[in-house]
């Protein structure tokens, strides 16, 4: 237990702790690096054309991604209409009506679904919605993304409903409200913010998904009318353009990447800060 040994131990301690700080800051720096690079490379390509024009024929420069933006919007809307009600109402069942056995089965199924790689979800959507109708479509893509929204919505709904204080429930029931009235008028509104946060985060997550769309919505150089045509989406366009040999397409891929990332980050930041003041935010 000499002085020299103690000095060495303290040196090691300070050095290693400094190293952990380096690890932390490097990890965080990556985020800013990504943002910065996208801004730098894609910022200049974001113009009115990008949002309003259709893609030009292969090899020609210019054009935009209006069809992809609209396509993403359509598919995300439909996906929410599919996934959110199932998750939300299923969550109400778990929190308010179910017995222990059924609850564990449903929760287990949801956790399982949550862990399925997105490309496998794409395969599932393909076999259910593309194969029977023999064409790619927007609703196949929406089905795939909707599936992915279910588990997060379900678990969060259950959690936030359960966290509503007993007093609120009992207060309503003491006034003679039936169970479903209590749920609809008191409990859900009380848990509203947490559930909304979770839904927004789920939406942000599926907005960026590419793999499940590759063989459901597939893609389209043109506008798609209705829901049963192959539809272009932002993430798939980014992928297609990025791996192509055309510089102009690369430039557009950067711009699209910036738009997509910007959208995803803004939803995340809003959901995690403003909406969820004081609530524990679910992890992906």
């Amino acid at each position, binding site marked *: *237990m*000499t002085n020299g*040994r*103690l000095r060495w*131990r*303290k040196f090691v301690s300070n050095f290693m702790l400094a190293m952990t700080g380096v690890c932390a800051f490097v990890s965080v720096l990556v985020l800013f690096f990504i943002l910065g690079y996208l801004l730098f490379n894609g910022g200049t390509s974001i113009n009115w054309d990008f949002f309003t024009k259709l893609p030009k024929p292969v090899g020609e420069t210019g054009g935009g991604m209006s069809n992809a933006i609209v396509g993403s919007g359509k598919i995300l809307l439909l996906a929410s209409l599919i996934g959110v009600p199932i998750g939300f109402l299923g969550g109400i069942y778990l929190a308010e009506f179910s017995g222990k056995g059924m609850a564990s089965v449903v929760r287990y199924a949801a956790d399982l679904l949550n862990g399925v790689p997105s490309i496998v979800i794409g395969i599932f959507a393909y076999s259910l919605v593309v194969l029977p109708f023999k064409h790619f479509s927007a609703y196949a893509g929406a089905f795939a993304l909707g599936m992915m929204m279910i588990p997060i919505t379900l678990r969060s709904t259950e959690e936030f409903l359960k966290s509503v204080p007993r007093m609120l429930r009992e207060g309503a029931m003491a006034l003679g409200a039936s169970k479903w009235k209590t749920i609809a008028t008191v409990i859900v509104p009380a848990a509203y913010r947490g559930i909304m946060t979770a839904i927004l985060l789920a939406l942000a997550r599926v907005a960026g998904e590419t793999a499940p769309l590759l063989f459901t919505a597939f893609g389209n150089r043109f506008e798609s009318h209705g829901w049963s045509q192959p539809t272009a989406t932002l993430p798939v366009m980014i992928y297609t353009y990025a791996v192509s040999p055309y510089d102009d397409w690369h430039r557009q891929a950067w711009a699209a990447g910036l738009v997509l990332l910007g959208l995803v980050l803004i939803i995340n930041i809003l959901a995690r800060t403003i909406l969820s003041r004081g609530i524990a935010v679910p992890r992906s």
Partner: protein
Amino acid sequence: MQASAKPEFSVNIVTNLTTPASRETAAALPMRMTISKLNFFYGPKQILFDISMGIADKKVTALIGPSGCGKSTLLRTLNRMYETVGTARLEGEILLDGQDILAQDVTALRRRVGMVFQRPNPFPKSIFDNVAYGPRINGYKGSLADTVEKSLRHAALWDEVKDHLHKSAYELSGGQQQRLCIARALAVEPEVLLMDEPCSALDPISTAKIEELMVELKNLTTIAIVTHNMQQAARVSDFTAFLLTGQIIEFSPTPHLFTTPSDPRTEAYITGRFG
């Protein structure tokens, strides 16, 4: 009252002793640690006010008082454990063997002033590795097995675990785990052992075992103990300090304090009128 003599640790500089007899007795005893004019703060809030006392060498000193009086806080200043909290601030002087502990390296200090906590907290390692932890990190060159055995014997645990040294510490009962923690603290041969309500999480039988232990241990090392249990303080300690809202109300040899307390508040506390 008493002049504060310089680094010689044998002079009592405590000023709150109230009976001539106790002052004499205390004056004759060497002090392992001395505390002078200690004021302690968590941020803006002051917890300890002008504390001055001594921890007598190879004796057991008890700190008693109602909840929130600052006794644990005071104990934790002695091994600078308060430094794990960001807003903690200390004014005053604490000497160990005549040297200011605030001027020393804290890691070296903590080897010399050990601590046993309120709830047993063995590491997620084997019994052997728990006790060997301290010697190992300090680069002990001798036989670890001997040191471990010695410490476990001192903690009156050896016979119960000698054939199970490589089992996990969590397989022991609560009382055994606490004795393991004592053995672990003893393994680095501390000069002072701080015990922060060491029996409060244990059953009466384990408590009794540990109280017996304390009486033996003071031959080995100086002990300072915080306890909620007055009877325990009366049983095991040589000196007792009674604290109330961050101040020492009375500090005297235990028999005096419990039979003829000088301060009415002390009397009120030990007769159970509050706390």
